[in-house]
C-alpha cells in the first residue's frame, strides 16, 4: 500500500465536502433560496460570510445548495456517457467487424463536431433546460468513452486469457461482461472522472449562457452568471461559485488522473 499523495487526499476531501453538501443540502440549508428583498446585494458581513446577491440570498447558502444542482447533472453526464461508452465500446472492440465500423463512424462523426457548440445550438434552439443540456452532453461525451473503452478492449482482446475463454466455448456476451469488462472497468472509471469534471465545466458554461438550469436555481454556473454584474459590488458572489466549480472539477481531474496512473502502473507492473 502506497501512501495517498497529498493532492489526491485533498481532492478526495473536496469531493467528500461537495458530496455531503449535495446530499444534505435540504437539511443543511433548507432556505437557501430564501430572498430578502430589503437587504439586496451586500458584501461579506455578519450572518453572510460571503455576502448576498441582489435578491438578498445568502451566497454561501446558495453555494452549498448549488452542489445539489451542479454536481448531479455532471454526474449524470459522466455516468450516462460511460454507460453508452461501455455498451457500444465493448462490443465494438470485442466483436470488431461491422459493429466496430459502425460505432467508429459514429464516434468520428461526433468528434468532427465541437461538443460545446452543438450543445449550445441544441439547447439554444430547443429553449434550454437542464434535462436537455444533460442529454445533449451525454450524447456528445459518449464517443470519448466509446473510444477509450474500445481501445482498452482491443488491447485485451488478443490477450491469451480472452482467447482461452473463447477456447472454452464461452459466449461472446459472457466473455465481454465477465472477462474483458472487469479488466477495462478501471480505465472506464478513470475516464468517467475526467468526463465528470469536463461535464461540470460544460454545464456551468451552458448555465452561463442561460441555457442550463432554470432561473433562480442555486447552481454554481447560474449563480456566477447571475452575479457577474456584481463583480465590483460583491466580488465574492462571483469568485466563490467560480472557485467551487474550479475546485470540484480540479478534484475530479486529480482523482481521475490518479486512477489512470494506478491502472497504468498496474498494467505495466503486470
Amino acid at each position, binding site marked *: 500500500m502506497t501512501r495517498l499523495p497529498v493532492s489526491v487526499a485533498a481532492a478526495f476531501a473536496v469531493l467528500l465536502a461537495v458530496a455531503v453538501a449535495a446530499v444534505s443540502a435540504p437539511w443543511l440549508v433548507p432556505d437557501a433560496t*430564501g430572498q430578502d*428583498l430589503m437587504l439586496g446585494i451586500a458584501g461579506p458581513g455578519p450572518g453572510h460570510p460571503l455576502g448576498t446577491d441582489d435578491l438578498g440570498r445568502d451566497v454561501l447558502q446558495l453555494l452549498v445548495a448549488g452542489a445539489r444542482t451542479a454536481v448531479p447533472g455532471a454526474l449524470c453526464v459522466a455516468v450516462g456517457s460511460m454507460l453508452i461508452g461501455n455498451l457500444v465500446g465493448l462490443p465494438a472492440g470485442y466483436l470488431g467487424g461491422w459493429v466496430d465500423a459502425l460505432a467508429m463512424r459514429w464516434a468520428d462523426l461526433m468528434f468532427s463536431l465541437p461538443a460545446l457548440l452543438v450543445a449550445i445550438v441544441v439547447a439554444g434552439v430547443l*429553449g434550454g433546460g437542464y434535462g436537455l443540456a444533460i442529454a445533449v452532453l451525454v450524447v456528445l461525451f459518449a464517443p470519448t468513452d466509446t473510444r477509450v473503452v474500445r481501445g482498452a478492449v482491443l488491447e485485451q482482446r488478443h490477450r491469451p486469457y480472452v482467447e482461452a475463454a473463447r477456447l472454452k466455448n464461452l459466449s461472446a456476451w459472457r466473455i465481454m461482461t465477465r472477462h474483458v469488462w472487469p479488466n477495462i472497468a478501471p480505465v472506464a472509471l478513470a475516464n468517467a472522472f475526467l468526463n465528470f469534471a469536463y461535464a461540470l465545466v460544460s454545464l456551468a458554461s451552458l448555465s452561463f449562457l*442561460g441555457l442550463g438550469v432554470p*432561473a433562480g436555481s442555486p447552481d454554481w454556473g447560474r449563480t456566477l452568471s447571475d452575479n457577474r454584474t456584481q463583480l465590483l*459590488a460583491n466580488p465574492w458572489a462571483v469568485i466563490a461559485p467560480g472557485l467551487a466549480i474550479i475546485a470540484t472539477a480540479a478534484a475530479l481531474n486529480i482523482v481521475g488522473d490518479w486512477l489512470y496512473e494506478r491502472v497504468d502502473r498496474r498494467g505495466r507492473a503486470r
Partner: protein
Amino acid sequence: GSTGPAGQGSPSGGAAGPRDVLRVALPSSISSLDASKEAGIMNYVVALLCQEALVGVGQDGSLQPALAESWSRKDPKTYVYTIRGGVTFADGTPLAADDVVASLDLHAKKGSTSAFAYAYANVDKIEASGPAEVTITLKQPDASFAWTPSPGTLLVTGRKFIEATGQDIGTPTGKILGTGPYKVTEFAPDSHVTLERNDAWWGGKAPYRQIRLDFIPEESTRLLAMRGGSVDVALNVPAEQIDQWKAVPGVELKTASDRSLVTLAFNTAKKPWNDVHVRRAVAHAVDREGIVRSVLRGHGQVAATVPDPAQWGGVLGEAEVKSLYESIPQYGFDLAQARAELARSSVPGGFSDVLTYPGSGPQLGRAALTLAQNLKTIGITLEVKEVPLEQWIAELGKHASGIYLGWYFATTGDPSEYVQQLLNSAYAGENGSNIAEYDNPEVTGLLDRAKEAVEEAARGKLLGEALVKAAADVPYQPLWWGEAATAFGPGVGTGEFGPYFFVGPWAAKLSARS
C-alpha cells in the same frame, strides 16, 4: 475596414478641449440599421441619429414639428403635413415631399414586410399633394394616427436611396440614409457602428465629429470599459449595477422613465386563470414596492395601470391624470387577501404553472422569482424559466400559457398605444397583442370609440374609463414602469434629460463637461 474622412484629427482626441469622438456602449447588439426590420429598442438609438420623422416628440411627450414644419387634421380621416424647406439628406440631395411618400409607402404599401406596417393598416392613401405637402387619408378615423409619422413608426429616407438600395437597406453595405445630424460610415452587425457628422443638418452643427457605438452585451465588460475610460456614454445600465457605475469617478448617472411597462398578464381564456379570484389572488401576492425597491434599486415606478403618466401629454392634464389613476382599482401586496381570494376560487388548494421571461431581461426574472416565492406560501407553485428572447416573444404570440410577463416599450407618446393593444378584444387571438385574451365588450366599445374621437380630451376620458373598467377584471397586473439609467463619462454632459431624450437626435443635445 473602417476609414474615416481623410485629413481629420486623431480619432480619440487629446486631453485638452472637448473630445472629437464620442464612444457609446450599447447593451445589446443590433443586426440591422433599419429600425423597421428588427424588434430591438437599440435600433432607434442608432437610427435616430441619422434619420428623422415628420413629427418629433418633445421632452414633455407632446408632438413637435420635425421634418414637417406643421400639420393639420383636415377631417377625422385626413392628415396634411407641410414639409420643412431647405432640408437635405446626408448625401446632399434635398428632401422633397416625394421622399416622404416613398418612406411612408415602405410600411403602408400592400405586402410590406416592415415591422411598422401595423401602424399603417388603417391608411387608405398617401400622396404628395404639393411639392412640400403630403396628405394621408385613413380608412377609419383614428385619433392616435397623429403619432404614426413620429420616430416610433416612421424614419424618413430618400426615394432614390430606396430604389437604389432595395433589400439592402439597413445592412452593412446598404446602410441607411436620413436627414439627421449624423451619417453611417461603417456598420459591423453585432460589433459596432461608426457615424460621421452631417455638417449640413438643418438643426445646426452637432458637437461630435464622430460617434462610435459599440455593442457590449456583457454588463461587467461594459462597466470595466467605462472604468477604463474607453467609453463615454453607456445606455441602459442595469438597475442592480447602478451603484457600481456611480462609484466610477467622474461618471454621471441619469435616470428617466424609459416608457416601458412590465406587467403580469393572465390568460383569461385558460383555466384556472379564467377565474377572476385566481387573478386577484396572484395580483395580491405581488410585492410591487419590494420589487421596485430591490430588483430595480428604486429605479422604476410601481405601475398603477398600463400607460405611464408621462404618456398623457397633450391628451389629459396632469391633474386629470392624477385623479384618473387614483380611481383605478389596485391590488396591493397582501398575502392574507391573496389567500382569501384563492380560497374563493375554483382552485382553493392551489395549482402550479410556468412563467417564462426573456434572457435579456434578468430583472423580469428576479421579479418573477419573488412572485414565485410569495405564491408558494399561498399554495401556488410557479416555475420560473428563462428562455431566449425570441422564444419568449414566440410564446407571447401563441397565447397558450396561463401567465406571462409582458414587457413593452412605447414607441409613441400616445397613452392609447398599449391600452388598445392589451385591452381591445380586436387584438385577441393568436399573434394578437392582447395576450390576456381579454374580451370585455364594454371595454372594447369604449376603446373603439376612443379611436374615432377627434377631441383629445374626449379620447382621454374614454381611455380612462376603459382602464378603470378593465382593472376590475384584472386581466393584467401591471408591475412597474421602467426607468433607464444612462451613464455619462467624464467629459460628457447633458443639459436636459428625460423619458424622450433618446427619441430624436440625442447626441446633438450632448455637450462637453469639464
